């Protein structure tokens, strides 16, 4: 917050991004929320089988972290990856189609929720393995550096993932090789049922940045502007060839870990406290406070988003399933060969 004063106290994001981009960001946050609700609803209606991990409550982190990225920049995501995917520009119809196991889905119905990727937009994919995407992100950053593309990689992972050996090995290599990657830990206080207090020997994950001599910063992850500010500085650092950063977005998932969660490890009060910190409400308020949007504009976003979701679900529901006799397609690139 160095230049708050100079800018008459307007938040970083308002100072930095065009109104249209901020409105688009808010729209994306709504899209994420409604996508997750749509998924939940579809699940109830039997359109989805398998598991799902919803990111309701974490929308600011995903969208803000992708604000300054281009389609050439990469992200790696997690099992809780719908938000990242939408933030990076994915088509919701293809996302729902994947969720419904359809041939029109991002993974032709082979991957499902935990593997949605959107390679054209630079999203290398969600990952079913906690921490699995972290070394992959470092690999993408190595490619960018070797090939001189100027691209950066944003690597999303959870607080639980920070106790995986992969986290340690990957952050160390990124630092030693000064790679253009930003490690974004979405600390929602729990890895499944296990709180960071019970699993992690530091209070804030960002404290671990010191073990890799990289900058570490803990941010209010429900404050869109604060996340933008931290990420943008890290992206600049990466693009300037100064290496990786670790940013920890403190946030919260409103829903259970997955469908089978009975929420026995946290209190109703804790949940409602965090619901009061709704990142979408806060973002809306910020935009209103700075005259970027008005109530009519907000209402229009909600209407548009509702319609987009409806159309996406309809597209997905109406799409064909993969052919059974193609169950084993796409294992190898040259399918004749193996």
């Amino acid at each position, binding site marked *: 917050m160095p230049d708050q004063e100079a800018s008459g106290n307007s938040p970083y994001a308002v100072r930095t991004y065009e109104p249209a981009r901020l409105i688009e960001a808010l729209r994306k946050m709504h899209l994420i929320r409604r996508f997750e609700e749509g998924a939940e609803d579809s699940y109830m209606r039997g359109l989805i*089988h398998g*598991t799902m991990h919803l990111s309701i409550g974490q929308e600011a982190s995903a969208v803000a972290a992708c604000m300054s990225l281009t389609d050439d920049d990469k992200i790696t995501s997690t099992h809780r990856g719908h938000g990242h995917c939408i933030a990076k520009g994915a088509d919701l119809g293809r996302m729902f189609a994947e969720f419904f196991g359809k041939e029109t889905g991002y993974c032709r119905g082979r991957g*499902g929720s935990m*593997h949605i990727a959107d390679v054209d937009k630079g999203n290398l994919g969600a990952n079913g393995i*906690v921490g699995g995407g972290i070394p992959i992100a470092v690999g993408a950053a190595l490619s960018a550096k070797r090939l001189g593309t100027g691209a950066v990689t944003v690597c999303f992972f959870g607080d639980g993932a920070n106790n995986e*050996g992969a986290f340690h090995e990957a952050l160390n290599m990124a630092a030693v090789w000064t790679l253009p990657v930003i490690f974004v830990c979405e600390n929602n206080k729990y890895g499944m*049922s296990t709180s960071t207090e019970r699993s992690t020997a530091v209070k804030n994950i960002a404290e671990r940045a010191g073990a890799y001599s990289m900058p570490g910063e803990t941010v209010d992850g429900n404050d869109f502007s604060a996340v933008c500010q931290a990420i943008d500085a890290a992206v600049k650092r990466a693009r300037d060839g100064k290496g990786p950063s670790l940013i920890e977005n403190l946030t919260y998932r409103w829903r259970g870990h997955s469908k089978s969660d009975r929420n*026995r490890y946290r209190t109703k009060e804790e949940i409602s406290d965090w619901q009061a910190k709704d990142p979408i409400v806060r973002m809306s308020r910020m935009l209103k406070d700075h005259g970027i949007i008005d109530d009519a504009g907000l209402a229009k976003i909600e209407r548009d988003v509702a319609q987009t979701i409806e159309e996406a679900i309809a597209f997905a529901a109406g799409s064909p399933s993969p052919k059974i006799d193609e169950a*084993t397609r796409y*294992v190898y690139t040259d399918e004749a060969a193996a």
Partner: protein
Amino acid sequence: MNAQTGAAARELSYAEAIREAMDIALATDERVVLMGEDIGVYGGAFQVTGNLVEKYGTDRVIDTPISELGGAGVAVGAAMTGLRPIFEFQFSDFATLAMEQIVNQAAKVRYMLGGAVSVPVVMRFPAGSGTGAAAQHSQSLEAWFGHVPGLKVVQPATPEDAKGLLLAALDDPDPVMIFEHKILYKMKGMVPEGHYTTPIGKAAVRREGTDLTIVSTSIMMHKALDAAQTLAEEGIDPEVIDLRTVRPMDRDTVLASVRKTGRLICVYEGVKTLGIGAEVSAMVAESDAFDFLDAPIIRLGGAESPIPYNPELEKAVVPQVPDILEAARSLAKGMI
């Protein structure tokens, strides 16, 4: 009443049977601890540990961080120094992170030290497809473990065996890997009360028959029994063997059956190539039972593909009852 043990039996689910085994172990042996991710207040991803943490506390039902390699290694070290840990992998797929500790350490330490220590660790692996959790949460990797001297590897197919094999594993001084099938967790069956063991290394003949032998593992045993019923109606009389232990494999039971029937199908969910069926087939083909074989040995294993998400595709890549029927009929054709 259970014929073998004399104990009263009641209907329990496979998950409940496993929990009961752990409950007995925790109650009777102070050295037993449970370790794993979300096995405490959450009760385990598949609710297998359930409420055991309430009964035994967090010192004995230990939620680990998400650290499979380290967690497994801690269990190995603890087993070498006086505890008897039961380590739960949340999904067997995550064993890929811990192969170092399982294979280089747990399986080899005793041998490398010339017998100076034992590593009495039990590891539990929820395995298999059918939950719509896709390629990284649906694997059947038991064949890998079966390839590793120093380990014992079991795959219970029934609630009774799930309990009995876990209790046998706890009696065993060496590392025992238990592959539990996720889809079986809710399956019910009669389970004797109290302490009993199911012998490691012994297959079970689930249905006697004379025309062909179906060696099956885990969930496939149930599909094989289903198929057997239909086949019996068609006048084909299959013997159905539940392999139960992958390592050491029960050669005697399998060979005796093949000597009788002269025909063999092996059905298992793991990938066909280099899977359990390869070993069963090779074990027979190298034995004197070879001379009794009247037809090629059929393997029905998983497709050469990761497990897909779409539920129809997911079914298509693992053997189903019609596949068994087709294979059995093709073998039986030569019979008549």
